[in-house]
C-alpha cells in the first residue's frame, strides 16, 4: 500500500480499522522524505524522534480501544513560523537560526491535544516575506511538478511537502496570499480562514492585521477536518473572534444548486496568462453545469490593493521585527563591542545594527525600510493613512458584492509557477504576482485555492473561492462540489 499518497481521512479510517499503525504511517513518510526531499528542500527541520514516539503512543491508545480524534496518529508538517516548544523555529531566517521556543502556539497545542504527529518544520520565505520561497536562509525550495520552478510562497515548503507526499497535510500562514498562491502552484488545497477564526498566538508576527494560519491538504474533506481542530477563540489572541465553530465536515455537500457565484470583471485583466484565464473560465462553466447561478460583479478598487498592501504590511512588519535585536534570543553579531562609530552611537546600537544587517536577508531589509519610511515623520499621512483609507474602499467593494452572491470566484495567481531566479531581482514584479490574493487579506475574508487544471507544461493552476466573513462553510461546500465532479486533485507529480 502506498501510504504516503493517502489523505488524512483515509489514514484515519485505516487506523480505526486497525489495518495499519501510526508508527507504520510515520515511518513510511520519513523514508520518503529521507529519500526524496533533497530534491525539493521542503523541510528545514525534521523531528523524527519525537514523531515516532508520539506515533507509538497513539498506537497504544488504539490497541487499548480508546477513542481517537480525526487527526490522531496522522503526520503533519508545520510552517517554520509557528512556534513549537523545544523545536527550533527559524522563520526561514538566519537571525532565528538558534531559536528554540519555550512555548507552543495555540494551534500546536490543539494539534498535540488531538494527538497529531508533528513531522517537522517547513521551508519558507524569510519571515513570510516573498512569493517564491527563494528568500530562505536554508536554501531555495523547489516545486515537485518541475524542480526548475518555484513552489510559490511564502509557505512554499508546506505546499511542496503535501504535493510531494512528504506529509498528508500541513499548516501555513497567509498574509497576502502565502497559503493560496503556493497551494495553486503545487496543485493542493490551501485554505486561508477568516481573520480572527484561528488564533495567531505563537505565530511569529509579520503583519498582525493581515496574518492568518491555515492549512494545506490533498482534498477538501481534510481541509474541513483540520479547520475543525484549529479554529476557535483564544484568550491569548485578542483579535481571535468569539464566534461558535461549526462542524465544518457538515458543509461537505455535493450540491451547487442555489449557489450564487460572483465573478469580478477586474480579475480578468491583461497580464494574466491565457492558460490561467481559460482554466478559470472552464471551472466557472463547470459550476454553471452543476446548477450554480453565475453573476458578473465588480470590485472596482482591485487595482489599488497591491499598492495599499505594500504600505500596510511593511509598516506593521517594521514594528514587529524591531524585536530582533540580538539581546533576548536569536543571532547576535560576532563583531560586537567595537564601541562608538562616527562618535555618535553607542556600542549597543552598533551591536543592534550589525546583528540586524548580518541576520536579515535583503527582502526583509527592504520591507523594514519601506515600512519605517512610510511611518516616519512627514510621510505618515501621505502613505500609511492613505493606504488604510484605500483598505476601507477595498473592504467596501467586497461588502457590496456579497449582498448579491454567496461566494466569489477568481484566479489565484496570474501565472502558473515561474522559474527559479525569474523574478528575484525585481521586487515589484514579485509583489505583483500576488495581485489576486492580496485584496482578500486586506478585507479579512476567508478564501481557498483549489486545483482546477494544468498548463500546457503540466504545471498546476488553482481556483480561488472567496467567502463572506466566517462563512468558510459555503467555501467548503462549493469546493467539495467542484472536487467531487472533477479529477484535478487526483493527479500527482512524478518524483523519482
Amino acid at each position, binding site marked *: 500500500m502506498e501510504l504516503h499518497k493517502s489523505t488524512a481521512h483515509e489514514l484515519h479510517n485505516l487506523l480505526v480499522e486497525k489495518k495499519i499503525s501510526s508508527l507504520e504511517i510515520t515511518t513510511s513518510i520519513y523514508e520518503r522524505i529521507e529519500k526524496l526531499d533533497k530534491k525539493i528542500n521542503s523541510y528545514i527541520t525534521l523531528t523524527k524522534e519525537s514523531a515516532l514516539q508520539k506515533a507509538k503512543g497513539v498506537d497504544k491508545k488504539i490497541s487499548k480501544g480508546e477513542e481517537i480524534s480525526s487527526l490522531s496518529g496522522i503526520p503533519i508538517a508545520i510552517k517554520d513560523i509557528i512556534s513549537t516548544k523545544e523545536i527550533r523555529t527559524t522563520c526561514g531566517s538566519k537571525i532565528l537560526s538558534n531559536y528554540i521556543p519555550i512555548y507552543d502556539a495555540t494551534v500546536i497545542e490543539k494539534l498535540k491535544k488531538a494527538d497529531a504527529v508533528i513531522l517537522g518544520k517547513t521551508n519558507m520565505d524569510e519571515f513570510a516575506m516573498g512569493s517564491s520561497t527563494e528568500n530562505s536562509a536554508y536554501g531555495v525550495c523547489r516545486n515537485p511538478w518541475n524542480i526548475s520552478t518555484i513552489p510559490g510562497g511564502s509557505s512554499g515548503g508546506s505546499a511542496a511537502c503535501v504535493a510531494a507526499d512528504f506529509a498528508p497535510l500541513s499548516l501555513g500562514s497567509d498574509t497576502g496570499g502565502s497559503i493560496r498562491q503556493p497551494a495553486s502552484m503545487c496543485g493542493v488545497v490551501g485554505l486561508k480562514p477568516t481573520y480572527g477564526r484561528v488564533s495567531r498566538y505563537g505565530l511569529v508576527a509579520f503583519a498582525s*492585521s493581515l496574518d492568518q494560519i491555515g492549512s494545506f491538504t490533498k482534498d477538501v474533506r481534510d481541509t474541513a477536518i483540520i479547520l475543525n481542530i484549529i479554529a476557535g477563540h483564544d484568550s491569548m489572541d485578542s483579535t481571535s473572534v468569539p464566534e461558535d465553530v461549526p462542524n465544518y465536515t457538515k458543509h461537505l455537500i455535493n450540491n451547487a444548486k442555489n449557489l450564487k457565484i460572483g465573478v469580478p470583471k477586474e480579475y480578468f485583466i491583461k497580464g494574466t496568462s491565457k492558460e490561467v484565464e481559460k482554466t478559470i473560465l472552464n471551472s466557472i462553466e463547470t459550476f454553471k453545469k452543476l446548477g450554480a447561478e453565475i453573476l458578473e460583479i465588480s470590485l472596482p478598487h482591485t487595482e489599488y490593493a497591491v499598492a495599499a498592501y505594500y504600505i500596510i504590511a511593511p509598516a506593521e512588519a517594521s514594528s514587529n521585527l524591531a524585536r530582533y535585536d540580538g539581546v533576548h534570543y536569536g543571532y547576535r553579531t560576532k563583531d560586537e563591542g567595537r564601541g562608538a562609530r562616527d562618535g555618535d552611537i553607542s556600542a549597543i546600537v552598533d551591536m543592534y545594527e550589525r546583528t540586524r544587517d548580518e541576520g536579515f536577508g535583503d527582502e526583509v531589509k527592504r520591507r523594514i525600510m519601506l515600512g519605517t519610511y512610510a511611518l516616519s515623520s512627514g510621510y505618515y499621512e501621505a502613505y500609511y493613512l492613505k493606504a488604510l483609507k484605500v*483598505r476601507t474602499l477595498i473592504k467596501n467593494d467586497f461588502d457590496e458584492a456579497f449582498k448579491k452572491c454567496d461566494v466569489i470566484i477568481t484566479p489565484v495567481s496570474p501565472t502558473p509557477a515561474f522559474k527559479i531566479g525569474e523574478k528575484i531581482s525585481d521586487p515589484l514584479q514579485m509583489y505583483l504576482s500576488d495581485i489576486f490574493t492580496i485584496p482578500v487579506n486586506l478585507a479579512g475574508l476567508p478564501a481557498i485555492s483549489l486545483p482546477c487544471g494544468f498548463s500546457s507544461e503540466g504545471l498546476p493552476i488553482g481556483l480561488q473561492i472567496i467567502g463572506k466573513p466566517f462563512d468558510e462553510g459555503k467555501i467548503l461546500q462549493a469546493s467539495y462540489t467542484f472536487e467531487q465532479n472533477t479529477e484535478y486533485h487526483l493527479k500527482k507529480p512524478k518524483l523519482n
Partner: protein
Amino acid sequence: MKNIINKKDVEYVARLSRLKLKGEQTEKFTRQLNTILEYIEKLNELDTSKTEPTSHVVPLRNVRRKDFQKPSPTVEEVLKNAPDKERGYFKVPPIIE
C-alpha cells in the same frame, strides 16, 4: 524612474531601522525602493477625503479578564535563548560610556 527617495534618505531610514548598510547595498536599495514607491503613488489617483481608515477588519474592543495569578516562565526559561547572559540577566554591550 522618479527620484522619490535618495541615497541620503535611505541612509537615514536604515539608521532608524537599526540596519547597517554597506555602500553598494545603499545604492541597490535606493533604486528598488524608488521603483516600489513610484508604483505606490498610484494610490493618489483615488479621492479618499471622505473615507475613514481601516486599521483592523475585526472591530477591536477592550478585553478584560479577572485579575488572577497564572504561572509565568522561569528566569532560566526566559534566558535560555539569550545570546549572552550573566547572573540571571541579559548581557549587552555598554549603553553609556
